[in-house]
């Protein structure tokens, strides 16, 4: 109800004009004591899961959703479109990093307080979003990173676990950031952080780039436990472990190029 109202104000011309006045904006947000949270979902060939993921988010009260269909050849776009949310389509597949940046740029036009990135393959739980946003609401962090190793990695295949742990080591060596999970797509950014972070990497190596941005832009970050569920579907669709060697090389090359 509150969210509906705030959304109405936010979409309404007069409301937008009022929000421009800083004192009023704070008043409006205070009145309904809520923050505008925008959920960004990059999706590539996810017709089997995207519908359920969106429904689930809505069930948990997250109405502001933007799906970036990254040139899928299946019906991902149509399914998302029918859900009464924002859908953007890349005409050519550009990769998860590119899609995230598109989503962030789009969300920023709505002046959100918090931006959350969420996977389309159903591996994340909508109920975790609350915990992810808490430190930003309390101004304890600009960026909150989900960690499946602080939380739960349900049914994670052993090889995946090894690859991810190696990823943590590579990230530590390259960026001097100690994390418990460096390749997790479940993240929350304050509006400020989202506007500061600029993702140029198209592919999965954006994970390293985001950390680089966090460091170089001096953003406060912290890790929070989340659950990542591995199912036969998510494993068949997910990143092949063999590709991680190339991913590691790419991250090193990117580092050299800067």
């Amino acid at each position: 109800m509150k969210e509906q109202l705030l959304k109405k104000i936010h979409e309404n011309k007069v409301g937008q004009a009022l929000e421009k006045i800083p004192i009023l904006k704070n008043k409006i947000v205070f009145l309904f004591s809520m923050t505008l949270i925008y959920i960004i979902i990059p999706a590539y060939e996810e017709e089997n899961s995207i519908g359920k993921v969106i429904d689930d988010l809505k069930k948990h009260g997250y109405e502001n959703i933007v799906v970036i269909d990254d040139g899928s050849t299946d019906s991902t776009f149509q399914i998302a479109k029918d859900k009464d949310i924002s859908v953007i389509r890349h005409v050519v597949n550009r990769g998860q990093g590119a899609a995230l940046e598109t989503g962030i740029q789009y969300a920023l036009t709505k002046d959100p307080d918090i931006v959350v990135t969420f996977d389309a393959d159903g591996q994340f739980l909508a109920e975790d979003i609350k915990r992810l946003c808490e430190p930003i609401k309390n101004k304890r962090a600009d960026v909150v990173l989900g960690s499946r190793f602080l939380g739960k990695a349900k049914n994670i295949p052993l090889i995946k676990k090894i690859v991810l742990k190696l990823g943590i080591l590579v990230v530590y060596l390259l960026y001097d950031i100690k994390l418990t999970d460096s390749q997790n797509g479940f993240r929350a950014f304050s509006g400020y952080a989202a506007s500061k972070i600029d993702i140029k990497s198209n592919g999965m190596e954006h994970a390293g780039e985001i950390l680089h941005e966090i460091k170089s832009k001096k953003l406060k970050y912290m890790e929070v436990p989340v659950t990542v569920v591995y199912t036969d579907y998510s494993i068949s669709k997910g990143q092949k472990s063999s590709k991680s060697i190339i991913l590691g090389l790419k991250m090193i090359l990117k580092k050299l190029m800067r």
Partner: protein
Amino acid sequence: MTILQLLILIFSFFALSRVILRTRDKKLTLYEFIFWVFVWASVIFIAFFPGVSTFFANLVGIDRGVDILIYSGIGLLFYLIFRLYVKLEELEQEFTVLVREISFIKKKEK
């Protein structure tokens, strides 16, 4: 002059003419021009004075002159591939910007 030397000479002059043409079209920067002229000039020089390469090889502790040529050739190739990778990466990123802009325009149309 051996046939090999003649072939190297002809090819090097051909390559040099390309370098000059490209520079005149402003497709190569001054830095790149100097780099390529240096490369092909050294190739011609070494083809006619192979002893030079042996001299340099011995200087760094390699026995045969040909070996240092092969090593530096491989080194050069690696460097060029890295530059190609950087260029490709730039293109990829620019392409993404285009795709992104198109997606925003299409979104507004609807």
